[in-house]
């Protein structure tokens, strides 16, 4: 029983992080229709900024959440307002926009990554924070991992409330369902799309803060987390935010079980799930 609890909780701890990473990407694709291949770079920016804030300015990573989240939001918002808005207006249909925006995000990935290389260098960065041990039902876990899970859950719930209870949330949902009709109903569609892209970037930035608390970070880390995000987004259903939330935890638990049996097969299991899902249920768990 202790072993079972051990594996499941370890999976939830990792899954929370995956869920947060994937939710941001899902939001960007689900509403703004941008399959953002630079998503991992926003995670990297959040992670390296937190490292700087903590090691240079002695600012706690928990406070860094409140700094990195808004900054990456503004960055994402501005990128959409400039680059993707222009692509949207010049695309004759949604299919063309999706492909051109994906290519543009591919370029953006390299731009951000290389700028980060210039700013932080390629060194691996890390810091020790909240290294305490917590016992749950006899199983031991790191306090910092529990904090990351808490944040991931809190942000997931807060975002759900934001979407369901606020006026902007309603506009986002309307834009996700039918942007043209939403526009006719008075929704400032360009603004909503930019907000969605910014929110996705903010989630990535916050995920980066949490990642930096648990793992070493560097300017080349983005691609690794992008892969995880894509797997989770496909698992949950392309564009489905609840699907990404559930998919993240599911992938974390599966990874933890496989890791418990044979760590060398963890990444293999991720890709196996990805392939099987594409063959059996291409629309994902909650995709439409």
């Amino acid at each position: 029983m202790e072993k079972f609890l051990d594996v499941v909780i370890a999976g939830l701890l990792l899954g929370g992080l995956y869920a947060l990473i994937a939710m941001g990407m899902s939001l960007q694709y689900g509403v703004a229709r941008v399959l953002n291949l630079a998503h991992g770079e926003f995670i990297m920016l959040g992670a390296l900024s937190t490292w700087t804030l903590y090691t240079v300015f002695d600012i706690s990573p928990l406070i860094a959440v409140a700094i990195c989240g808004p900054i990456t939001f503004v960055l994402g918002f501005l990128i959409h307002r400039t680059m993707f808005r222009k692509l949207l207006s010049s695309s004759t249909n949604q299919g063309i926009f999706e492909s051109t925006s994906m290519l543009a995000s591919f370029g953006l990935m390299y731009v951000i990554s290389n700028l980060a290389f210039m700013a932080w260098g390629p060194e691996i960065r890390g810091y020790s924070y909240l290294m305490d041990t917590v016992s749950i039902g006899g199983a031991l876990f790191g306090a910092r991992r529990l904090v990351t899970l808490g944040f991931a859950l809190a942000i997931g719930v807060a975002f759900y409330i934001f979407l369901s209870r606020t006026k902007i949330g309603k506009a986002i949902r309307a834009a996700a369902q039918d942007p043209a009709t939403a526009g006719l109903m008075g929704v400032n569609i360009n603004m909503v799309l930019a907000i969605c892209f910014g929110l996705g970037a903010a989630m990535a930035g916050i995920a980066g803060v949490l990642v930096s608390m648990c793992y070493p970070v560097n300017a080349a880390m983005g691609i690794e987390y992008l892969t995880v995000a894509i797997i989770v987004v496909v698992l949950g259903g392309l564009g489905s935010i609840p699907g990404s939330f559930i998919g993240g935890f599911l992938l974390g638990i599966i990874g933890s079980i496989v890791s418990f049996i044979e760590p060398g097969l963890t990444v293999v299991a991720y890709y196996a799930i990805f392939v099987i899902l594409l063959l059996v249920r291409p629309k994902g768990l909650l995709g439409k």
Partner: protein
Amino acid sequence: MWKKILAFTIPLTICLILILTSVFAGCGGKADKDKIVVGMSRSLSGPIAIIDDSAFRPVYETWVAEVNAEGGIYVEEYGKKLPIELKIYDDKSDPATMAQLTEKLILEDKVDFIWGGGGTSFIYAQAPIANRYNYVLITMEGGASSLKELLPGMPYVFVTLSFSDWYEMPVLADMLASKGCKSAYIMYIADLHGVEYNGVAGVELGKKGIQILGAKAVPPDIKDLSPVIKEAKASGADAFLCFAYPDQVFPAVGTSIELDYNPKVWLGGPGINFGFFHTAFGPMVEGVMGWASWNRKSSPALNELADKLYTGKPEDSNDWWGHAFYWAGLDMWRAAIETAGSLDNTKIRDILATQHLQTVLGETWFENGLMNRETHPGEVGQWINGIYEVVGPFDKATAEWVYPKPPWPK
């Protein structure tokens, strides 16, 4: 009449001048040369740019600046000192690109020499090319026992960095046995590096009667190491050996701290030997061991080297494993050129293969293509009072080995 004479004389005179110029130039020795061009394909971008940035680059930048400040390397056949000019291409962390760029440097750019690319897999790609075109290749980052087996067939290749069965693991096995260490648990990365270190550890520790209670391979991008650390803890092994890179070693340290896993020996690497390990974990590093080669206290020359490389720079830039070897490799190259009095790669190869030369490590030579072990200032290191000390072999230790490892600070 005069017109006819002039019509023949002028072209004849010009031809004579040209012929005489070329004849005298030939008699006077080599065509004049004003620099030694060294070509390198390095990973300036991409995932292993970190190796370039933290390992060889700080060394060659400092070394070349120092040599050029003295006017360069004296080459007898030109009768003067020649400064070094570096021609560096970015292989974007791709060994295949690096192989193409190496051929370009040799065939198109016709550089005088090439220096090594970053990482073991790059050596495998570059060494046969250098050897095929008779270019001396002194490798920097990387090394492997399987590479050692290839060296007899590649006489132009010389390896500077220490690796598993080439002194490191036998020294560690001796150290563990001397303290009565009975068992070990191994976590290793599932690549050439990890598989080799795990295999060599099995052999060398086995010779000393140290039992391997578990050996777990992990993929490079594993995130949650808690199952492995919990298994290692449950095994009760005296030593935990983590043969992986910083991306795995750092989380392994973090997870060990979280789960309060504190074996008598916690050794990992590469990664533990870098200053950025200390800056990341602070006082938590006390007692953690890794691979090493040198320390400020190893010799006055190495203390001076530390001053040159690290003074005024953040601690992150420190590398107490490779930097001294890379510097010594460049010293060997310079000494071989000065001894040969020539830029001829074959002459320089012959000197490198046969002669003892002076480097920052003292009298140094290559033995079957490998930098001699006798000159190594150390093999195993440990963080003691915030300094990465050489603790093994015992006769080269700069501090007494702390065994068992102290508990993780609270």
